[in-house]
């Protein structure tokens, strides 16, 4: 086995999972909301980009930007008018509502776009590769995905640690009632948080759509890897979430090299192993979460 290549491919795969998990991690860190529809909302974003780039003929970059804006608005409204009504001390109602949302999004996509597998067209970019070392060649698209994940997290960290609204996010995560005493409108903060989470998920959607086929039903399976990434990394830590994605990615790559049937299983085993050794994840309480 070429370990250098395994590590590189694993890390790149981890970048995809990290991107998937980022929005999940963000929303959980700020408002303790577990969004079971996150995977399906990513698929929705992928269809949005597919529709605007393919059928309406926009370039992929412009379609992505448009989708980022649209998903932010969708997230804001979703929180403000739906999730806000069920958010409280009891964690069950939001779980049930986002589960229902997951079913609705899947079926709406099925009705609108059919069950066929789709793919985003990115031309030569899809198959281009770069040589990092004599024995190591990686795809340009996966490398860009990992870079996008790193840039997205870096920007979010800047937002959280260098801006007034970022402090408001973290203060609200610490203690929502006292945050209100500072003049922070909790409902608006939560709506912006879900908006950002869905805006970031567009980046995940585009990298998914270029890398692999998607259809309306793949959301929940992707969500599972994303959950594993969030929990391995430590709840609420964004860099931890990327690290968690990379752990799952490397484990899956090693598993696949031993026997292609073992790819998925190896990822889950790595997840269980981390849970047994470090039940609170690799970076518990890091980042903006230190309750």
């Amino acid at each position, binding site marked *: 086995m070429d370990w250098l290549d395994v590590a590189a491919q694993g890390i790149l795969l981890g970048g995809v999972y990290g991107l998937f998990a980022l929005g999940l991690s963000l929303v959980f860190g700020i408002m303790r909301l577990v969004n079971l529809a996150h995977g399906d909302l990513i698929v929705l974003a992928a269809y949005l980009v597919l529709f605007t780039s393919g059928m309406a003929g926009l370039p992929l970059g412009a379609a992505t930007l448009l989708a980022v804006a649209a998903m932010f608005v969708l997230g804001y409204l979703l929180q403000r008018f739906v999730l806000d009504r069920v958010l409280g001390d009891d964690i069950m109602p939001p779980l049930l509502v986002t589960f229902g949302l997951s079913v609705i999004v899947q079926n709406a996509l099925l009705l609108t776009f059919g069950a066929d597998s789709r793919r985003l067209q990115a031309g030569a970019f899809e198959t281009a590769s770069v040589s990092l070392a004599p024995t190591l060649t990686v795809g340009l698209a996966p490398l860009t995905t990992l870079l996008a994940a790193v840039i997205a997290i870096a920007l979010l960290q800047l937002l959280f640690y260098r801006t007034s609204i970022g*402090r408001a996010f973290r203060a609200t995560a610490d203690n929502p009632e006292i945050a209100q005493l*500072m*003049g922070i409108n909790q409902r608006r903060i939560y709506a912006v948080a879900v908006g950002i989470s869905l805006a970031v998920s567009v980046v995940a959607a585009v990298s998914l759509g270029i890398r692999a086929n998607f259809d309306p039903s793949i959301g929940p399976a992707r969500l599972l890897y994303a959950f594993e990434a969030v929990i391995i990394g430590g709840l609420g830590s964004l860099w931890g979430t990327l690290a968690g994605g990379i752990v799952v990615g490397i484990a899956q790559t090693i598993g696949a090299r031993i026997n292609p049937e073992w790819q998925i299983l190896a990822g889950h085993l790595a997840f269980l192993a981390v849970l047994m050794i470090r039940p609170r994840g690799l970076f518990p309480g890091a980042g903006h979460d230190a309750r």
Partner: protein
Amino acid sequence: MTTLLRTSALDAFYGDFQALFGVDFEIARGEIVAVIGANGAGKSTLLKSIAGLIANRHDALRWGDDAIGDRPAAEVVRLGIALVPEGRQLFPSLTVEENLLVGAYSGLRSAPWDLRSVYDAFPVLRERRDSRVTVLSGGQQQMVAIGRALMSNPALLLCDEISLGLAPIVVEDIYRMLARIRDGGTAVVVVEQDIMRALKSADRFYCLQEGRIRLSGTSSEADRDTITAAYFGT
């Protein structure tokens, strides 16, 4: 003196449980008023009602001429009312300086209180500006809590049991600071269990018992036995 805030027949509830009964309270600009009473008398509830953490009847609270009883907390702070909550309640994942900056989030007024003047008032906080608040001493944490409230440049500062669990010398420091804050024109309400401490610094006092005002008056004319009777309900 002009009345800054007045409550009239204020009732307050936690669900079905009524914690305040027809409380009439007022404070004028530049005054320090003490609210004393035993545990569970309703002192904190009164402050939470004023700060908007407990919703009240529209006209139960008047800020100048405006009825503000039903305003939520995030709006009340914009009027110029800031609460230093019981137990300090700092944001544990934020540094000292970030806690102070969050206090200025409403951002309406930036004078006289800003980072510089809060650090001048509490120099030890300048040294610890990048520390997490969880590693500070109790007294320093209380300074952050007061500084955080001041950062909104309130006209009315509500202080809930700010001496609780602090060394007497630290308590003296903090009350000296309150006097200076009042001299700057800010009215201050202090909630205290320590009657003597409260009366020493306040111009007037209210004594609450079981959600009702049993006694009120000026601190200088307060009679210890009468207060004790009102305090314990004997």
